[in-house]
């Protein structure tokens, strides 16, 4: 019997599947009100794409919050920076963007995402050292310091790139829509959904199949004990913070191409949504963040179609509803 076989014959612990069905329940409730099947498919596809983008942005925030207990109101700066990286990466490669070639366009997107990971990860390192380190364990000061940090970052972006909104068209192959019957699904939304899924699968595998992932999951629950087992939690913190910033940057790239524009305050505008998602999901839970992001995006799209005025408060209503059902979020982590 190998080490991994112990208890293999035993049933695995029962998984809490109910939250996974929540998006399906929401879709099933919305479907009859929407009426037209093609509108429903289009709205659902749009919701999934938006959900994947928000998940990508918020996953780093929930990990950093869960593990480091840091309220980072500067997370939006990483999103904005990612968007500017997209603008910078696209500028010299206009010919790639304009070529109606899936391989070239995908290569451009991959290059841009890689650049955002590097730039935002490094910016995250600087931000953690300068802004976060002095306020570890002090929530009120964290709020003030990170809001201050985000203002400085935003103004720096304005100073570097000017106050104007920068237009950013997606690559040629990503424009237009796939037609399925009467339903139109924008190609770029499919691309964004796939990128978000890759991020989710990658994160899930990293967290569940690697020792670093185990350490992160353990650190979210009890940092002190991880340190007492012989691991440098501070280094782990830096790594997680950099990864969170990098993920926010990836989200910023995807969002900029989705909205086809870049401006320094876009990250700040998305921050509230990110916080709603990680609170709904359970602080520190990547799986909860994934479900939460899909829920938020679906409801945003359905409400926007059915009752545009309600869309403004629909997500707050969703958060209240989820917290009444599960006060610590869909998938609470440890004692949080």
């Amino acid at each position, binding site marked *: 019997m190998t080490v991994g076989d112990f208890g293999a014959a035993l049933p695995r612990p029962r998984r809490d599947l109910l939250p996974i069905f929540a998006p399906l329940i929401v879709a099933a409730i919305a479907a009859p009100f929407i009426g037209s099947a093609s509108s429903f498919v289009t709205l659902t596809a749009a919701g999934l794409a938006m959900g994947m983008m928000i998940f990508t942005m918020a996953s780093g925030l929930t990990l950093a919050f869960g593990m480091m207990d840091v309220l980072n109101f500067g997370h939006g700066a990483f999103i904005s920076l990612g968007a500017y990286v997209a603008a910078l990466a696209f500028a010299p490669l206009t010919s790639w963007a304009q070529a109606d070639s899936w391989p070239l366009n995908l290569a451009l997107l991959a290059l841009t995402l890689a650049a955002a990971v590097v730039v935002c990860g490094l910016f995250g390192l600087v931000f953690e050292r300068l802004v976060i380190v002095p306020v570890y364990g002090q929530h009120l000061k964290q709020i003030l310091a990170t809001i201050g940090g985000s203002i400085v970052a935003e103004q720096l972006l304005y100073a570097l790139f000017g106050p104007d909104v920068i237009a950013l068209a997606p690559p040629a192959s990503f424009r237009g829509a796939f037609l399925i019957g009467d339903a139109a699904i924008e190609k770029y939304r499919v691309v964004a959904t796939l990128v978000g899924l890759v991020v989710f699968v990658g994160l899930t595998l990293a967290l569940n199949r690697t020792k670093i992932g185990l350490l992160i999951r353990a650190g979210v629950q009890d940092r002190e004990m991880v340190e*007492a087992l012989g691991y440098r939690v501070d280094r782990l913190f830096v790594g997680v913070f950099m990864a969170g910033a990098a993920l926010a940057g990836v989200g910023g790239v995807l969002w900029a191409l989705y909205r086809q524009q870049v401006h320094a305050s876009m990250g700040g505008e998305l921050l509230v949504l990110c916080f709603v998602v990680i609170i709904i999901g359970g602080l520190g839970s990547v799986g909860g963040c994934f479900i939460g992001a899909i829920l938020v995006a679906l409801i945003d799209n359905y409400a926007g179609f059915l009752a545009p005025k309600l869309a403004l408060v629909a997500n707050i209503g969703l958060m209240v509803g989820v917290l009444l059902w599960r006060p610590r979020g869909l998938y609470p982590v440890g004692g949080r």
Partner: protein
Amino acid sequence: MTARLALDGVHTHIGRYHILQGVDFDAPAGATTMLLGRNGAGKTTCLRTIMGLWRPSRGTIALGDSAISGLRASAIARAGVAYVPETMAVFADLTVRENLTLAARDGPLDEARLQWIFGFFPTLRRFWLSRAGSLSGGQKQMVSIARAIVEPRRLLLIDEPTKGLAPAIVGGLIDCLKEIKRVGATLVVVEQNFRVAREVGDWVRVMDNGRIVHAGPMAEFADDAALQARLLGLSLDSRQ
């Protein structure tokens, strides 16, 4: 493999509170030293200070020939010290296997070592793939101790291992502590249950008000009821 632990004039402040006020004691290599005392005497703070979870404000702590005072907890752990906290501190959302995998710093889990651990705690085999948070208090304590011994360590710091456990489980724990010592480790154990302390302890150090007020062989202390009453108080719950 085992090492003597020595504390010399150790002071620890937590916030504005002066908890350890010059602790001097040694734990001989390869023996089990019981750290006893009334509630609030500073026993847990003493273990946490040795482990590096609180920084001593003064004094030195040495493990064998190496000074470990002032080091980070991770460095102290890598020097061969394992800690079983009073709260057990199992990672509730991780399985039993994942809890032990994390504790095995030097590589994958060693199967022979695991079989040795399962000898004391057969329950762990049954719940190998279960979330640690779903286990009972006694089972969590088994995970916590198993985590500390999943690889050989020079010194084990164990805080109230039998607290709140059923008598049937306590027997297994006593056997486990004796066996850990036999295979080569120094143990410092905080324990409120005097019967357990008497059974596993070779040496005893009694704390009061942040200082060591008595040191000697456990057997002598166990035979001196007057000394026990004076140092530990009549309220000691388990003279049991």
